[in-house]
């Protein structure tokens, strides 16, 4: 039990949460500004929001230098800030900045209330950052809800369009059920250990249990809790067969929101799951059987099988999709499988490489995915809230800039050198391959990524090769300044990651904190 901390000390510890505090206060400021501003001045909300986000990013940069490598546990162990959480937070903030830049014009085209959008985005971002910087199941659950609820609203933000509101309710119901399931798992964990602090849970498991078989016999509650918490994460990361919500919600949500949640929700859930896996699930007695081999009924094998299913099924279904947003939804599912491979590799081998490759993959996926959705949001026809392959016909004539950027994003996601995505996949699979026990998985991943290349390239086929039948669509597209900036920067980042991956992947490897290696 920790001693009570004084108010002053509490406030001092809050300093570690400066990025969060900036986000929370700016979300409120933006609400207020939105209320009092003239409607003609509302277009300044996007720059204002991004300014706040940049402040927050700067504070993260500052914190990164300030905190020790072992990280800091603050506020009665409710929050744990370390380099890992800061790196993920930085990525999330970048995602939010890009989203804000693109959304400003997108929302204006639809004539939708703006201030609330940014405010909810910031609150959601707060929840995400909190979720990745905690080692406490209670805080984690609260943070999960904190980022989920604004996302439910954002998905249904275009409530006058049937698809948007439908995606919102589908996300809401399935998400609530998933979090209720996860909550039950947390309750069971609390019941077994009396604490929800990762390190104490780990110590407890380590001291009291020997092997998976023994746990299954004497303390099935523990396995039940593991399963339910894992199910919650599998839902959020959309591993097949927990993925069914993904395509519908990606299709229906406003495109910029899809871009944001396509990356941010996934990255947050993976980061949090990574923590849970590394410190709780990875305890030897939850993985190994008595004779020291990996137990057939451990969670590792479950994830292993799910990865294989996900890789194969998601790529196959994606090939038959006509709607680009749905196709990208399935593509995001297959990317989730890759990230899962990285988690599996790390929990088996604990190398810096596999850790770095997870973060690097997330980074490449960040720019490629949000960039692709950003391009789609501009191609989207007003009111339809979706983009089919046919909408992209003759795109190369309408805006070469967008098409060139889309080319880069698509190539990156398909894993074509020299773009970031290729090295993301390459490093990830290489570290998985080195581990040895995962070589089958690597083989399947390579084969399915070849299949994947085809549906990605199909987007390009439609953009380049197809001509528009009617003349009405030929007018060139006007890309707004902020949107152009966002897309161009993402494209440059993707290229940069592909051309100079080395320094960044090494940096990512260095950010590993004592939490993960111990």
């Amino acid at each position, binding site marked *: 039990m920790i001693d009570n901390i004084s108010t002053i000390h509490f406030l001092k510890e809050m300093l570690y949460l400066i990025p969060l505090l900036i986000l929370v206060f700016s979300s409120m400021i933006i609400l207020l500004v939105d209320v009092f501003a003239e409607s003609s001045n509302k277009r300044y909300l996007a720059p204002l929001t991004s300014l706040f986000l940049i402040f927050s990013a700067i504070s993260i940069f500052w914190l990164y230098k300030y905190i020790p490598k072992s990280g800091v546990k603050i506020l009665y162990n409710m929050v744990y800030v370390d380099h890992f959480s800061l790196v993920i937070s930085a990525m999330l903030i970048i995602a939010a900045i890009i989203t804000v830049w693109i959304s400003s014009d997108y929302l204006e085209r639809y004539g939708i209330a703006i201030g*609330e959008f940014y405010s909810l985005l910031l609150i959601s971002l707060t929840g995400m950052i909190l979720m990745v910087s905690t080692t406490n199941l209670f805080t984690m659950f609260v943070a999960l809800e904190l980022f989920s609820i604004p996302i439910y609203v954002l998905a249904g933000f275009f409530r006058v369009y049937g698809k948007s509101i439908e995606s919102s309710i589908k996300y809401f119901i399935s998400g609530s059920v998933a979090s209720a399931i996860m909550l039950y798992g947390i309750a069971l964990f609390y019941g077994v250990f009396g604490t929800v602090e990762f390190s104490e849970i780990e110590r407890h498991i380590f001291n009291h249990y020997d092997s998976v078989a023994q746990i299954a016999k*004497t303390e*099935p*509650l523990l396995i039940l809790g593991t399963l339910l918490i894992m199910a919650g994460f599998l839902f959020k990361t959309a591993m097949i067969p927990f993925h069914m919500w993904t395509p519908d919600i990606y299709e229906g949500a406003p495109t910029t929101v899809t871009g944001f949640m396509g990356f941010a929700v996934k990255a947050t859930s993976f980061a949090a799951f990574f923590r849970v896996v590394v410190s709780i699930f990875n305890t030897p007695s939850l993985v190994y059987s008595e004779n020291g081999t990996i137990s057939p009924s451990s969670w590792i094998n479950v994830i292993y099988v799910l990865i294989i299913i996900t890789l194969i099924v998601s790529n196959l279904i994606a090939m038959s999709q006509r709607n680009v947003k749905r196709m990208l939804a399935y593509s995001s599912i297959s990317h989730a499988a890759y990230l899962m491979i990285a988690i599996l590799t790390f929990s088996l081998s604990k190398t810096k490489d596999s850790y770095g490759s997870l973060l690097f993959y997330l980074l490449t996926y960040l720019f490629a995915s949000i960039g692709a959705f950003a391009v789609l949001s501009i191609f989207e026809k007003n009111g339809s809230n979706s983009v089919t392959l046919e909408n992209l016909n003759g795109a190369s004539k309408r805006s070469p800039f967008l098409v060139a950027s889309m080319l880069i994003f698509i190539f990156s996601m398909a894993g074509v050198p020299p773009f970031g995505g290729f090295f993301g996949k390459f490093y990830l699979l290489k570290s998985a391959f080195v581990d040895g026990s995962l070589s089958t998985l690597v083989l399947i991943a390579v084969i399915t990524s070849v299949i994947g290349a085809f549906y990605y390239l199909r987007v390009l086929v439609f953009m380049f090769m197809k001509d528009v039948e009617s003349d009405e669509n030929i007018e060139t597209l006007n890309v707004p300044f902020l949107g152009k900036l966002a897309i161009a920067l993402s494209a440059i980042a993707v290229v940069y990651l592909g051309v100079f991956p080395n320094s960044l992947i090494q940096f990512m490897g260095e950010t590993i904190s004592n939490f993960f290696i111990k």
Partner: protein
Amino acid sequence: MGVYIFYLFGTGLIATSIVAILMKNPVHSVLSVVSSFFFLAGIYAGLSMQFLAVIQILVYAGAIMVLFIFIIMLFDLQKSEYSKDRFLWRDLVPLALILITAAGFISAISRSESIKNYVANAKLPSNFGSVSAVSFEFFGTSNSVGRFSFLFEVISILLLSAIVGAVVLAKRKL
């Protein structure tokens, strides 16, 4: 004595919950849930969590469920509308699924050592479950901060976002 109260409230809880998910009319359903929350509050009280029991009734039954009632009233659903929600034969699949899963869960729980041999312990801390305990955890004392005060603040932001979200979604004009 306590055992019988538990059995009584437990049976009532399960019965009213089942009724809640069986009722065609959403108003009946919600009212049934409200009564199940009363039973739940009774169980909380039996576990010496008086304050939680009060909150359960005040907030859950009194506020949240009333919100449901309001919305249902707002829609003014006709019988023809909500009777579209009827049992289909294919619903046997999820039912079977749930029965199998529940059976597995319950057998797993009953085998668990951590809960097998626990009966009520008489020597509770003096302020267990009381308002003072709750206030201490949430708000601390005059010169220290409560353990859960941070989460309390987070919840306030969550409620803020819920309010903003509800306003955005429910207002008529874009």
